[in-house]
C-alpha cells in the first residue's frame, strides 16, 4: 500500500482513503481523519506534492483541487493513495 507520505516532490496520485490508525498516538489519530476531510482531502481527488520543507523534506505542501495544503509527513501517513503514480 502507498501513502501520501511516501511521495516525493512533483509526484501525483489519487486519494483512495484514510487510515488514521496508522499513527502511533491514538488520541491524535482520532480527529485526524475528520480534520483531513474538513480541510479538503477527499477520496477520488488528485493530489500533487508541490513543495517539501527544507529540513528532512518535512513538512510537505500538496495541491488538492484549487488549494494548497501544508501538512507533516506524519499526518500524510494517514492518507492512502493510488499505487500507480500518475
Amino acid at each position: 500500500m502507498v501513502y501520501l507520505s511516501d511521495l516525493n516532490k512533483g509526484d501525483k496520485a489519487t486519494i483512495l482513503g484514510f487510515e488514521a490508525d496508522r499513527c502511533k498516538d491514538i488520541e491524535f489519530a482520532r480527529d485526524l481523519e475528520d480534520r483531513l476531510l474538513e480541510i479538503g482531502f477527499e477520496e477520488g481527488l488528485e493530489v500533487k506534492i508541490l513543495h517539501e520543507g527544507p529540513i528532512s523534506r518535512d513538512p510537505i505542501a500538496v495541491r488538492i483541487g484549487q488549494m494548497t495544503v501544508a501538512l507533516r509527513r506524519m499526518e500524510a501517513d494517514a492518507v492512502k493513495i493510488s499505487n500507480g503514480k500518475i
Partner: protein
Amino acid sequence: MSDASSETSPIPNKDIKIALVGSPNCGKSSLFNTLTGSHQKVANYPGVTVERRSGNYTTENDQNIILIDLPGIYSLKDRTLDERVSRQVITGVHKSESRPDLLLCVADSTNLRVHLRLVLELKHLGLPVILALNMQDMAERDGIKIDPKILSEELGIPVVPTIAVRRGSLDKLKAALTQSITNLIPPKDAVQAPTTRELQKQARELAAKALVSEGTHHKITRQLDKVLLHPFLGIIIFFITLFGMFQLVYFWAEAPMTLIESGFHALQELLTNILPDNWFRSLLVHGIIAGVGSVLVFLPQILILFSFILILEATGYMARAAFIMDRLMAMVGLNGRAFIPLMSSFACAIPGIMATRTIEHRRDRLTTIMIAPLMTCSARIPVYALLIGAVVPNNPVIFGLFGLQGVVLFGLYLVGIISALIVAAVLKMTLTRGVAQPFLMELPKYQLPVLKHLLINLWERARIFLKRAGTIILYSAIGLWALAQYPKKPLGATEPDIYYSFAGTMGRYLQHIFEPLGFNWEMSIALIPGMAAREVAIGALGTVYALQGSEEQIEQGMRAVIQNSWSLPTAFAFLAWYVFAPQCFATLATVRRETNSWNWTIFMTGYLFALAYIAALVVNKTAIFLLG
C-alpha cells in the same frame, strides 16, 4: 458603538445581531473590516482566550446592525475552543453572548467544495443563513465561474457574490441582509448535522452543480511559491526578510524613540521648573512620567514590528514562514507558527506575546507565551551594554575578527534562546502536555494587503498597549515611586534617600536572599524600581549610588562604580540575572491578558525568577572558583 452590556442584556433591543461565520482564509475578517470600518472592538470571551471581535453598521433604513466576527473554523464540533465558542454562540447557549438573529456565512469562491461543507453544517443550527461568495475577483481571474442562482435554489438561502476588500461590491450583500432582516425568521432549535463525510458528499455534488467553469490553480501563488518555498532560496529569502524587518524596526524606531524620550525629559524639566518642590512634583516627575515614559518609549518599535507582522499575515507569507520553520520548531514540540512571535520578542516581548494569536492551538500558544520573555528584548540592551562595557575588556578574539564584548553580548542572546528551547521542551513534556496537534493548514493565496484594514488592526494593537500604559503600568509606576520615596530620610542620616524608604528596607531584606549571588544592597534595592522596565534599573542604581547629572554622566559614573566596587563574579551574576528575570510589569500584564489566567502569569513570573536566581548563583560561584 454599543457596549457589551447592552448586547448581553436580556431586555430585547431593536438592534439586529449578525454573526459572521467561515473557514480560515475565506476573507471573513476583510469583509468584517469593510462592513464595520473603524467601528469595532476586540476583547476576549470571558474565561477563554477566544477573541471576540464585534462592530456595527447602519442600514439605509436606519437599522443598527451588530456584527460579531466568530473565529475562523472548519466545522462546528467540540474539538477546539474556537469551535466550541462558535457553536455555543450560534445555538444560543453561550453564557455572555446572546444568540444572533442571522448568520452571514462567508465562503471562498475559489474553493467552493470545501467551504460549502460548512454552509451545509450551519444550516442545521436553526438560524437563517445568508451566503457570501467571497473573493469573486480572484475566482474570475482563475477562470472559476459559479452560478449563484443554482446555489441559492439548492441551498434555499440567499447567495451573494462579494469582493470583501472592495466596499462598492458589498451593496448587493447589504441589500440582501436588509431584506432578510425585514422578514426575519424566528430562530429554531439546532438539529444534529450528518457526519463530516456525508456533508462532504453533499457539498461536492452541490459544487459540481453550481460550478459553471472549474478554473485553474491560482497562477501568481503557484509561481511565487516556487521561489518562496524553494528548499534553498526560500530559506534565504525568509532570513533576509527577518533580518530586514529587524534592521528597520531598530532603524525606523530610533528617531521617534529619541523624540518620545526627549519629550518626556522636556516635560519633566518643565514641571520641575514650574511646580513647587513637594511630594506632588516628585510623584509627577519621578513617578508617573519617568515610569510610564520608560515603557511608552517602546511604542514606535512595537508599532513598526506589528506593521510587518500584519503585512506578513495579510499577504499570506506568514503561513509560508510557518512551513519553512515547522521542522525546526517541531524538535522542541512547537508549531512552525511559533517562530515569528518568538522572533518579535527580540524587539519586545509584548508584541511577541500578542502575535501568538496566530497560533491556533491553545497549548502550543501557551508554551510560546511562556518562553517569549527569554528572547533578549531591546530593554535589556542598555543593561547589557553598561555591564559589558564596564567589566569585559574589548580584546580582539577569534583571529581578531570580533571584539570580546560583542562575543559576550552574542553569548547572552544565545543563552536566552537555548534556555527558551529547553523550557519549551520541558513544558511540552509536563504542564502543556497533551495530544499532539496536527500542523495541517491551508497555504492561502497571496494577496495584496489593504492599507485601511492594516491601519485598523494596527490601531487596535496600539490601543491595547496604550490602555495598559494608562492603567496597570501607571499604577505600578506610582506604586514603585511610593516605595522608593517613603518613608523619608531621617535627619542627619548619611546614606542616600532611597536607603531609608520601603524599597530600601525591602532591598536590604532582599540582600540576604541575593547575597549568595554576590549582589550588594545597592543592587538589591535597584531591582525593585527596575520592575517597571529592565533599563530603569540603571537609573535606579544611579539613584542608589547618589550619582547626579545627565543620563550620560550617570552612565559614566555607573561604569566607574561597577569597575571599582563590584567584583567580577558579582557583575557577571547580575548579567546572568538579567538574561532570565521577568523585570517588566508591562510584559506580565500582557501575559495576564493574553492567557486570561492568573495561574499562568504567576507560574511564568515564578519560573523566570527561579531560573534567574539559579543562573546568577551558578555564575557567581563558578566565577569565584575560577578567578580564585
